[in-house]
């Protein structure tokens, strides 16, 4: 079972590695956006799917990663790849105290707390003296699509690896236990806080690493688009569509919806928000567990057993 998952994942990653250099610039950007959103979805699924804490502010770490590259390259003249790594590291380090703070909040309060965190970080970035304010930062122009793409693909591989590990390990089992009933899991000796914080940190590293690639890909960052709750909305919609708390959900949902996002986003930003918002509602009503459990009965049975609370 797990071997088959590893094999299929490797094939998917391999195809994603081989195709884009052979295609046009358009094909490359299509692949870039798809891989970016699938990877973001895997990151979000770690905290929301496995730990059961709905975060509407993981985009905070994405913005931090993007600004690490933008400021590191333009102000400190460092290589972008180093800055992109640093973005992930900063996200991870910040996620530790933030996790201890935020994860004290339950359910709706955690969701609201994270939503406000993204908003507050955006306002702080607009106000801080060294960030270029609300007008943003331009990076040196160049043909960055393929380097940014391979970076993003590497992060996707990492995110899938992390998810597979969480899915199979004792750590993941404990996460699912605390998702089902936090107090009971604590009584049974699960160090609830520690496991939640670890899941939160893992879930922050992924967007932290991805943000730097995005800044390099766009060669421009500004607070409104890097800390945008729209990125969060799309990620959430993709995971819900694919199947929250499942290994394949983020891949299926992200791959399906990223193209809708890209083709609509530029031309009809409003229609795009209505589609993603409406999609979340429609999927939750019509197919509450998402596509993957619906087409995989064995997994659905297991999900029904373990995810009564998710």
């Amino acid at each position, binding site marked *: 079972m797990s071997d088959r998952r590893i094999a299929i994942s490797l094939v998917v990653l391999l195809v994603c590695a081989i195709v884009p250099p052979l295609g046009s610039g358009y094909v490359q950007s299509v692949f870039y956006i798809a891989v970016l959103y699938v990877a973001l979805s895997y990151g979000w699924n770690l905290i929301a799917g496995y730990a*059961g804490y*709905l975060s*509407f502010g993981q985009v905070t770490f994405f913005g931090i990663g993007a600004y690490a590259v933008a400021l590191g390259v333009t102000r400190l003249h460092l290589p972008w790849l180093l800055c992109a790594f640093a973005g992930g590291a900063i996200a991870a380090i910040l996620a530790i105290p933030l996790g201890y*703070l935020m994860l*004290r*909040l*339950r*359910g*709706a*309060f955690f*969701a*609201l*707390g994270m*939503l*406000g965190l993204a*908003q*507050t970080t955006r*306002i702080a970035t*607009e*106000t801080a003296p060294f960030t270029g304010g609300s007008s943003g930062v331009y990076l040196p122009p160049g043909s960055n699509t393929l380097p940014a793409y391979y970076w993003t693909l590497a992060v996707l591989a990492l995110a899938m690896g992390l998810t597979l590990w969480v899915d199979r390990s004792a750590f993941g089992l404990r996460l699912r236990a605390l998702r089902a009933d936090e107090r009971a899991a604590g009584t049974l000796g699960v160090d609830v806080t520690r496991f939640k914080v670890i899941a939160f940190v893992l879930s922050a590293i992924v967007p932290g690493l991805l943000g730097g690639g995005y800044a390099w890909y766009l060669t421009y960052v500004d607070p409104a688009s890097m800390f945008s*709750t*729209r990125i969060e*909305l799309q990620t*959430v*919609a993709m995971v*819900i569509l694919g199947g929250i708390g499942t290994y394949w959900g983020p891949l299926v949902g992200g791959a399906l919806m990223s193209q809708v996002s890209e083709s609509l986003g530029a031309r009809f*930003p*409003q*229609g*795009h*928000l*209505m*589609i*993603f*918002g*409406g*999609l*979340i*509602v429609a999927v*939750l*009503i019509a197919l*509450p567990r998402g596509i993957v459990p619906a087409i995989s009965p064995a997994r659905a049975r297991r999900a029904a057993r373990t995810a*009564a*609370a*998710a």
Partner: protein
Amino acid sequence: MHLELAAQLTIDGLLLGGVFALAALGLNVIFGVTRIVNLAHGEIIVLAALCASVAFQQRGITPIAMLPFAFVGGAVLGAILERIVFQRLPSDPAGAETTSLLLTFGVAYFIVGFSLAVFTGDFRSTPYLTSGLQLGPISIGESRLVAFVAAIAIAGALAVLLRATPIGRALRAASQNLEGARACGIDIGRMRTISFALGSGVAAAAGSLFSMIYAVNPDSGSQFTLLSFSVVALGGLGSYAGTLLGAAILGLAVSFAGFFGSAQLGQVMPYVIFIAVLLFRPNGILGKGAA
């Protein structure tokens, strides 16, 4: 600090707090009966504010004259949302919380997209009653004063409705003890729809009034959601006096932070207070007060 300045900021803050209270009362009514944390609350407020602004600038209809329309429009929207979307929640409480959060998150952005399509992304306000009343050294913005009086009047009407009418009593019964209310023959499904209609109508009325104070665009919704929750976190759920007190505290905090810090600090103040309160009471005042 000069006494005049302190008095000025205090009055500004308290007037602001009146409208905050109205926004939070709408949230209270919905959560009390349905236990749904409505993340789309701020989006309904903003939609109403944008409507009020356009009605004033294109037709000359004042936000006060808009109040009945805003209330009815918000109520219809709330009732429709409850009937189409929120009635379909799973029955187990834990699953219902996760699902309802995701549903209201989706609804919120659906409304943002709709507002963008209709109103574009421009910031809009209602330049109605822009002068100030001079009371010695203190200047009271007329628009704030009128918004405050209207908000308190609506809040009072809501209190009367909840205390002294059969529907209000049924709503309160449903929020105090769902099973008990059901056993007494109260139609819970209907109460849920009514609470959504009432809460959203009050939110929309607050939105009309907010348009006299703030410039908003379709993306401002989550700020108002946080603001409403901040009041609820401070004041507690189900407590009318608590909501008013929480709103007054938040209004003062925003007013003073905006003056001594910056406009941005005033903007993030509700969030700072929300986090600060909840860190001391992680389960929130919501969960306890109403259970």
